[in-house]
């Protein structure tokens, strides 16, 4: 071991020390080949951290009561001591903004720098989803544009009016995402220039669609009329923005803003395990490297390891503290495991991962980071060893059966099943009900029909769905129909008209309904 020449020994931080640590960590990170955006490290106080929390990670956000709600509840929990604050918040932007809290010790600041400024940062820059869906250079500009635009709307049309539209858009936010098309990069400058043109153009397009004056030579027989849209549309907000008959131009722009922001956050929702795993793996690796070089003290390492282990702790399912799989734990273990497979493959690894066993670990890890999302990452890289360590088991919950079934555990026949099931668990399109725009009655009552295609017979939660439909009705302003489809037959219909909700269920006859109720109890 080299001679110890630690950067610092005390627990207090100073700006110079932060700079020193950042330089050293940055150097080590570059040696490992991490490619990052430039960093902007901002020191903030606890109150400011609370503020940052409530705007769901956006450094600039438009005003809305729901952020106030988050803020109020966070503040409450924090003041009562029920909740510690996160050590860091990092924003996918260029330069990459990371917040450090002033209360943290030097060790924690170094940990956060390694975790956020080099871990998350390189993930934002490298992962294909972020590269495709988000434009780090322009997001801050866009958020500023959005904030100002919404503020202007509030001045002109009143806070209540704008709030109502935002509420409705938020209810549909998860369905404001393009899953397959590449979005156009957004920038504030362009946005402003194009915004007015777009308003006019959009309105024209809508007018075209809803034109009621009969056209000469329009002899299309009504039986042959195609559905509109011809293909089901998954992006509800996009569809509304382009096609809702009675929205004002500014309202379309608000819909668009919410949609864009949803799109920006979409990759983060798809890569939680990978993103946290990657960042945790690198803070662990980088700080250990500094320790090997003698740049940090034993005390530093003890404090770091203590907080690291609590971050990657996975409580078992029957624990009081269990609330699902800890993405830090799973991600970190999988990342470390990939390194292990590359460096010291066992017989089992060679059988399961013939192409990566024994390869260069840095290349393999970078490849994994760049080209996967949680779902495919688990599918591709979850090794039997990690399954054993976590003691994973898979349960089948079928409402037609009386009991729950254990379908697989961490043993030879079970590995593949578990991997499959866990991968599905991270598939967003599986977790969220599959709801698409199915048809718009263009020539008749202008009603819009959504279709929910049931997977594994899982129904919608009706109460919430009705609320969402009310919101949709506010945007569409004509009847809104939601059909729940299973095996090509419509099981359930919820309709939201001007007089509220009407329901129609063709699901089962009552006997069966009762039977299943009994079973459930």
């Amino acid at each position, binding site marked *: 071991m080299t001679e110890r020449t630690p950067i610092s020994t005390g627990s207090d931080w100073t700006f110079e020390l932060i700079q020193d640590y*950042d330089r050293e960590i940055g150097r080590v990170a570059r040696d490992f080949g991490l490619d990052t955006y430039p960093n902007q490290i901002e020191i903030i106080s606890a109150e400011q951290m609370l503020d940052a929390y409530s705007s769901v990670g956006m450094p600039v956000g438009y005003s809305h009561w729901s952020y106030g709600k988050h803020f109020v509840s966070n503040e409450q929990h924090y003041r009562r001591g029920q909740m510690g604050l996160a050590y860091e918040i990092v924003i996918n932007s260029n330069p990459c903004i990371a917040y450090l809290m002033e209360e943290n010790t030097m060790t924690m600041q170094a940990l956060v720098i390694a975790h956020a400024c080099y871990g998350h940062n390189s993930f934002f820059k490298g992962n294909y989803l972020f590269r495709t869906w988000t434009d780090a250079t322009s997001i801050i500009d866009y958020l500023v544009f959005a904030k100002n635009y919404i503020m202007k709307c509030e001045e002109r049309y009143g806070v209540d009016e704008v709030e109502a539209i935002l509420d409705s858009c938020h209810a549909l936010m998860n369905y404001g995402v393009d899953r397959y098309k590449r979005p156009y990069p957004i920038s504030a400058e362009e946005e402003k220039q194009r915004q007015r043109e777009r308003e006019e153009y959009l309105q024209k397009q809508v007018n075209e669609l809803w034109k009621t004056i009969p056209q000469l030579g329009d002899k299309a027989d009504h039986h042959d009329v195609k559905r509109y849209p011809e293909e089901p549309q998954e992006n509800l907000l996009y569809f509304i923005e382009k096609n809702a008959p009675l929205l004002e131009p500014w309202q379309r722009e608000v819909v668009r803003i919410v949609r864009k922001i949803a799109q920006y956050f979409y990759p983060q929702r798809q890569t939680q395990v990978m993103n946290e795993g990657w960042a945790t793996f690198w803070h662990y690796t980088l700080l250990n490297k500094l320790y090997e070089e003698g740049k940090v003290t034993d005390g530093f390492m003890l404090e770091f390891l203590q907080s690291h282990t609590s971050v990657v702790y996975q409580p078992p399912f*029957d624990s009081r503290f269990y609330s699902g799989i800890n993405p830090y734990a799973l991600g970190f273990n999988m990342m470390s495991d990939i390194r292990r497979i590359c460096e010291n493959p066992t017989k089992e690894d060679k059988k399961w991962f013939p192409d990566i066993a024994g390869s260069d670990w840095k290349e393999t890890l970078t490849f994994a980071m760049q080209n996967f999302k949680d779902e495919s990452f688990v599918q591709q890289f979850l090794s039997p060893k990690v399954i054993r360590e976590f*003691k994973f088991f898979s349960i*089948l919950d079928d*409402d037609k059966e009386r009991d729950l079934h254990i*379908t697989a555990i961490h043993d030879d026949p079970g590995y593949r099943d578990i991997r499959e099931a866990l991968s599905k668990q991270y598939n967003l399109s599986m977790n969220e009900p599959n709801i698409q725009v199915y048809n718009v009655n263009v020539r008749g009552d202008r009603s819009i029909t959504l279709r929910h295609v049931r997977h594994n017979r899982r129904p919608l939660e009706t109460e919430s769905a009705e609320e969402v439909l009310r919101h949709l009705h506010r945007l569409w302003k004509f009847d809104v129909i939601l059909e729940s489809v299973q095996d090509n037959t419509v099981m359930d219909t919820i309709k939201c008209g001007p007089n509220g909700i009407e329901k129609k269920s063709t699901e089962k006859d009552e006997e069966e309904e009762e039977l299943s109720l009994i079973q459930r109890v």
Partner: protein
Amino acid sequence: MSYIVDRRLNGKNKSTVNRQRFLRRYRKHIKKAVDEAVTKRSITDLDSGESISIPRRDISEPFFHHGKGGKRDMVHPGNKEFVTGDHIQRPQGGSGGGGGGDGDASDSGEGIDDFVFQISQDEFLDFLFEDLELPNLVKRQLQGIESFKYVRAGVVNEGNPAKINVVRSMRQATSRRIALTASSRRRLREAEEKLAALQEQDPVLRDKRKEEELELEIAKLKRRINKIPFVDTIDLRYNLHLKQPKPTSKAVMFCLMDVSGSMNQAMKDMAKRFFILLYMFLKRNYEKIEVVFIRHHTSAKEVDEEEFFYSRETGGTIVSSALKMMRDIMRDRYPADEWNIYGAQASDGDNWNDDSPTCREILIKDILPQVQYYSYIEINPRRHQALWREYETIEATVEHFAMQQISDPGDIYPVFRELFQRKETKRAS
């Protein structure tokens, strides 16, 4: 390369707007909670905010998600004794157990818990006194918390022309002139001495050219000295005056209540709430506030809060006894030129018949000219009696006298608001 920025000095209340939006949206809930809290508090307990709870379902934001039912696989960690093919019982509710917990739903709220949060004392009172206005707030020595006086606070470089400090400005100008012209004046002096020396010589020997040169030099230096302005803007000094809040003054509130046999405990409770509201309202506007409790049946007595609200008396009613006592206390302890006096009287309306005209007389002659405001509430679902009719004649003539009838607790707050409703509306109607 990393940039390190210290943001701690930036504003920390970035969420204030959002918080206000939230309070605004749930105004109704908060208002209800505040109104309930008022009934539970003691009349002088004003120093805390209030914790507000709102049912979680009112506050949730809806989104599409799966409900119960159907078929689903779930993977959990920490297996201990399960093997493939085991059947286990469905756990009864509870998310901690073997797999009943729904990953999506569990973090969106643990069922029916209320959403609880704190509002500060100021917010509490704001909600309580929303759009109320204290009548006749302006009074001799005070204008509530908004009154200020100006005190001198030294001399500064900036200010308005009216506040120029002449002496200091001139001193500044003089020293500037001295400093700026020092070298020119030295050279002027030297030139003048040389010229004088030259002129002392015999005219024949004089060097005419040199003399001219010196004269030119002298003229030039004089011009240069004159160019330095006598007073420049940088010389100006201004007196600084600071706003200092004037000590706000004192108010006294008289609570008069009928405790005769006809007033039952429920009626007294209603009266109490009314007094609490009035007290809190005054508390906001005056720094020091005293409360005098006078209860009466056939004779009046000054008592403490506890006795005022909770002791039982029987007997007939002579209202004027209380008014007389109020008048005496006012005269002895609360002179109207030092105190803002507020009177609030609660009664069920019963009175000794011949007494009501006396009441009117005392009020009009002795009390009303001295008080800021006098309110009378009659807690009585029945028809009005003589006292009410006498008071009605007062209400018609005196502006700062108000009266209302309350028949159940729900009436109190609206009545209170009406009593103190904004003066504009009153004038308009």
